[in-house]
């Protein structure tokens, strides 16, 4: 299948000093859901930022390698052009416009549609409110006063408005209640299915992301350490121990109460 | 000439709020220095003019003074503001080597006890008000004196002569019907004009401005059909007013202790000044009042130094101050139209001039007035 997004061996350095990515490659096929997992500080968010061009804002730089979206090198496009060409990045930590109302947040997202032929806007607002009725109740309220979960819904709502080919989701489940995690992932799956939107998903919640994704990558220290179809990964012993919390030979879920301090070693680091 | 040079020092405001005058003061001082050297210096001593730009800020003026005093031991010094003159006085008194004058005509500086080594190259601001008020009084009759309004800026400069001015007006039987304080510079004054419209003064005296808002007062009050006469003190009596206001300036009057550059009078010194100005910058044409002021300062310094040297005394501040005080019926060679006598370290002399817009210049409307 043709790849919508190809990341080829990129290296990223912050502040001209800290190297965060060291030769990372991955592919997102058209219309697929791909999960990217990894521990804190592995460089997941950095990967997404280097795709969407937001790295520059944080004094980061891609020093080697290439990222192609739809076959064109993203470096040649300004960040907003990239968005308008169908690549939408939902950033970590929701990043709603706090002093705009819910509705104005959605209006802001319509800028992603500039220069594209699109169906009536009011329909897409309705679509968003359809998926997230709670937002409709709060449409006139300032986004800064929404609870964490509501803000996450709004962030996804903005992505919906933009009708992109690829959504990059950075930790959408962060701080969400279990039911809502389920709900949001269901919606993500639905968006993927109904609109054919490809999704690159960065998550800590490995269980759910591997459930929804067809392919997964796991990164540590700025490199992919293991990848494969989601089913295969789910079966991998290390993934089970470190990401799914299923320990030991019995395949029983470990209880948090029984953890002792001992350093376990990951096989892929050997 | 192998005698030691005599140094004229100066804290000169080439930038900042007073720069419009500073540039010309500087030119006046520079040209005078060239001229006096072409005349063989002072008693054979060549003259050196050493200055620094101050931005019209007191601390920078003080810095310049210390720097120049340290390196060149100036006998005389040009100070750019009242604030600086006051701030430096303690230092100046304890040094006892330098006599100072400058841009300020502040009334306080004529206090010889506190400022024994500082003088004023003309009448102080209160004396200027005195001259103006005497002129106004001369236009009225006993019992039917014209009314006057004072308009001044909310600065130390602006407020300087007001209290004295009111006393003098009262003494002359002139009624001050309104007092208006404004911020200096570009402000809208329509409300103040409305205030003046209510009291309809015969005369309005401006003090503490250079140009704006004088023009607005005049234009707007005339639009209202008032036939008020407008007058201003030294720094408000430059030809700038004619250049910028054109016909609207017609009839405006100023008090000026020196002859204007383009006045009809002549005299050896006035001619020398014109020749020197012509020589140093042939394209410039007319020279503003600041230029005359700078030149006159340097002239007085020369006279004082000459008198001191002739008396066989050293050039200390005290000796020079004494020489200055001894000036009596001094012929300035046409810079001032009558012989002048120093009183309280100032030259209390001046003349009222009126704008003739057609001709683009000021013309005298009074005789020279010498206060006693």
């Amino acid at each position, binding site marked *: 299948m043709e790849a919508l997004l190809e990341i080829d061996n990129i290296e990223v350095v912050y502040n001209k000093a800290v190297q965060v990515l060291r030769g990372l490659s991955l592919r997102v096929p058209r219309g697929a859901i791909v999960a990217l997992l990894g521990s804190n500080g592995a460089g997941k968010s950095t990967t997404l930022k280097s795709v969407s061009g937001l790295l520059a804002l944080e004094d980061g730089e891609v020093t080697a390698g290439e990222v192609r979206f739809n076959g064109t090198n993203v470096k040649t496009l300004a960040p907003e052009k990239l968005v308008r060409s169908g690549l939408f990045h939902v950033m970590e930590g929701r990043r709603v416009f706090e002093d705009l109302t819910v509705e104005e947040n959605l209006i802001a997202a319509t800028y992603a549609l500039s220069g594209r032929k699109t169906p009536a806007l009011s329909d897409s607002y309705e679509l968003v409110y359809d998926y997230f009725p709670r937002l409709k109740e709060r449409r006139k309220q300032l986004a800064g006063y929404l609870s964490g979960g509501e803000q996450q819904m709004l962030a996804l709502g903005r992505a919906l408005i933009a009708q992109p080919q690829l959504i990059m989701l950075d930790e959408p489940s962060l701080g969400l209640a279990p039911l809502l995690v389920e709900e949001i992932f269901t919606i993500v799956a639905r968006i993927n299915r109904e609109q054919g939107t490809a999704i690159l998903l960065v998550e800590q919640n490995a269980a759910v992301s591997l459930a929804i994704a067809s392919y997964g990558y796991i990164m540590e220290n700025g490199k992919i350490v293991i990848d494969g179809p989601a089913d295969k990964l789910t079966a991998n012993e290390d993934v089970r121990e470190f990401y799914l919390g299923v320990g030991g030979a019995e395949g029983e879920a470990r209880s948090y109460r029984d953890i002792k301090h001992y350093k376990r070693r990951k096989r892929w680091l050997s | 000439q192998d005698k030691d040079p005599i140094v004229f020092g100066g804290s*000169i405001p*080439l*930038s900042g709020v007073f*720069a419009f005058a500073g*540039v010309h003061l*500087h030119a006046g001082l*520079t040209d005078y220095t060239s001229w006096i050297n072409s005349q063989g210096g002072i008693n054979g001593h060549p003259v050196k003019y050493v*200055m*620094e*730009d101050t*931005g019209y*800020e*007191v*601390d*920078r003026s*003080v*810095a310049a003074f*210390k*720097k120049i*005093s*340290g*390196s060149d031991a100036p006998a005389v010094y040009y100070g750019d503001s009242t*604030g600086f003159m*006051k*701030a430096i*006085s*303690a230092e100046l008194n*304890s040094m006892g080597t330098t006599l100072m004058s400058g841009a300020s005509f502040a009334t*306080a500086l004529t206090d010889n006890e*506190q400022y024994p080594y500082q003088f004023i190259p003309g009448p102080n601001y209160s004396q200027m008000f005195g001259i103006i008020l005497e002129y106004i009084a001369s236009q009225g009759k006993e019992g039917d004196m014209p009314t006057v309004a004072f308009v001044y800026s*909310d*600065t*130390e400069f602006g*407020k*300087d002569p007001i209290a004295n001015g009111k006393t003098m007006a009262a003494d002359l039987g002139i009624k001050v019907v309104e007092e208006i304080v404004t911020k200096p510079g570009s402000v809208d004054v329509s409300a103040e004009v409305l205030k003046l419209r209510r009291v309809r003064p015969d005369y309005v005296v401006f003090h503490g401005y250079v140009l704006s808002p004088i023009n607005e007062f005049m234009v707007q009050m005339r639009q209202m059909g008032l036939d008020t006469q407008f007058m201003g003190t030294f720094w408000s009596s430059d030809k700038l007013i004619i250049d910028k206001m054109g016909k609207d300036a017609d009839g405006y009057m100023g008090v000026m202790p020196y002859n204007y550059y383009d006045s009809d009078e002549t005299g050896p010194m006035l001619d020398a000044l014109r020749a020197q100005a012509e020589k140093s910058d042939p394209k410039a044409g007319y020279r503003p009042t600041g230029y005359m002021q700078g030149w006159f300062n340097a002239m007085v310094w020369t006279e004082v130094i000459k008198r001191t040297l002739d008396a066989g005394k050293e050039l200390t501040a005290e000796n020079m101050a004494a020489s200055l005080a001894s000036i009596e019926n001094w012929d300035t060679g046409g810079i001032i139209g009558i012989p002048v006598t120093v009183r309280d370290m100032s030259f209390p002399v001046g003349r009222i001039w009126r704008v003739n817009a057609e001709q683009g210049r000021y013309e005298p409307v009074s005789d020279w007035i010498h206060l006693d």
Partner: protein
Amino acid sequence: MRIGDAKQTYQADEAIWTSSTQKFWFSLLLLILLVFPFLANAYLLYLGCLVGIAVISTTGLNILTGFTGLISLGQAGFMGVGGYTVAWLSLNTGLPFPVALLLAGLMAAAVGILVGLPSLRVKGLYLAIATLAASVFLHFIFAEWEPVTGGMAGLSLEPAHLFGFTFQSDFRMYFIIVPLAVLMVFAARNVFRTRVGRAFIAIRDRDISAEILGINLLRYKLMSFALSSFYAGVAGGLFAYFYRVVTPESFPLAMSIFYLAAVIVGGMGNLLGGILGAAFMTLVPEILKLLTAALTPFYPNAPVFMSPMLEIIFGALIVGFLIFEPHGLAEIWHRIRRFFSLWPFRN
């Protein structure tokens, strides 16, 4: 070269100078400050005193703006309070200068507390303008309360004196100003080694969570205002003794901006930065004049056309520095030091 700095005790670790190299350099600096007045000419001495006063005031403003995050445009006003207090005391009482300076500081601190009162509700630029309002108001009082302040003409005062010894020259003033500046910078340094200083920084970084962690916001904001204006008051008092005259125009708004610029260009929240900034803002215009002096022999008219140029260059220097290093001179200094402390082992 220093590589590690492992410490045996917490005591040693909490000291200001943690290595003997640092102690050496600091002693050298003190020595230079001590011999400077004996070698310098009147002009340099004058500039030295001016920098000293600026350092005190900038350090004060740095405490408030740099460390506590409360932007103030009222510094000139607070200095004015100090200056007028000293002038009034000198004219009306015979108090020796240390007492007068202390009272100047306390008076300014009291006014500072008053001005700081809205800071619990009013924030950011809104607060900055509120302090500006205060300074406009103070200016008004200086100009109009004639019986006490002498109105527009201001007050002239006697030289500072102590036990019959008068400080009428710059040389003598230097020995009041500079030791006081060193002492006050150290006192500020101490504050930031302890709970009070930490509370200030916490308020700057996130005031509402600071409150929940047990910091009484109003109390510490006022404390910061008080401390900062105390410094300003002392600086203003020294200013009065130094110029021996105070008028309302001695403390213009431009002066507040000058100090704010010193803090920012030097490096906010960094005491060394404040010192560098104070020196920068005072000395650079003087240094730029050398340019004019160098040109004058060739172009006699140089002073006239150079003076707008210098204004342009000065502005451009500020802009350039901030673009190049938004964290100020202190950061540049740190970078240089890092370079040399690792030299010749670079990575």
